[in-house]
């Protein structure tokens, strides 16, 4: 029952952060980072099964494994950037958060360039 674990950790960290906020507000950011880390790690261990299944299906359906790898990479980058952005927004630094967001988007686009180019090539061959 991973979901109960995740909910429990979330609520416990909430209580801890509320208590800490009264005494030392500087420490709340660390507590929230650690809570996020724990929950993320718990869900990531679950996700590995899904990835294996996807790879299996892709090899069965004869999809280029390079594309699947790119999609997985994009998912990883999205998760990491989302993590950093939410931490920055929590501590009130929305400027840095939006910069991290832009950086993540740019890197995702550069990684997905091969897919875009192959898509364009396909369209060109289809078009008369």
């Amino acid at each position: 029952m991973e979901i109960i674990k995740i909910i429990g950790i979330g609520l416990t960290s909430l209580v801890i952060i509320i208590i800490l906020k009264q005494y030392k507000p500087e420490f709340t950011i660390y507590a929230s980072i650690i809570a996020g880390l724990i929950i993320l790690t718990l869900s990531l261990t679950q996700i590995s099964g899904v990835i294996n299944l996807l790879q299996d299906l892709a090899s069965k359906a004869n999809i280029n494994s390079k594309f699947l790898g790119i999609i997985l990479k994009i998912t990883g980058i999205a998760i990491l950037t989302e993590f950093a952005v939410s931490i920055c927004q929590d501590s009130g630094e929305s400027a840095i958060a939006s910069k991290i967001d832009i950086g993540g988007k740019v890197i995702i686009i550069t990684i997905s360039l091969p897919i875009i180019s192959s898509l364009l090539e396909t369209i060109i061959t289809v078009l008369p």
Partner: protein
Amino acid sequence: MDIDLLFKIAAIGILVAVLHQVLVRAGREDQAMMTTLAGLVIVLTMVIKEISGLFGTVRTLFNL
């Protein structure tokens, strides 16, 4: 990677708050600030280790 770390951070935060109170009450403001700083650095080192662990797992999982 455990919930223990969360409790540890909470405990260090509360202890640092108590230390701060005691030192301020005794009229040693500068030392009180130093203890707060030391607590922050200790917690930061613990958190950084965990963050690098998370980045490692994400990397291996999505083969970045």
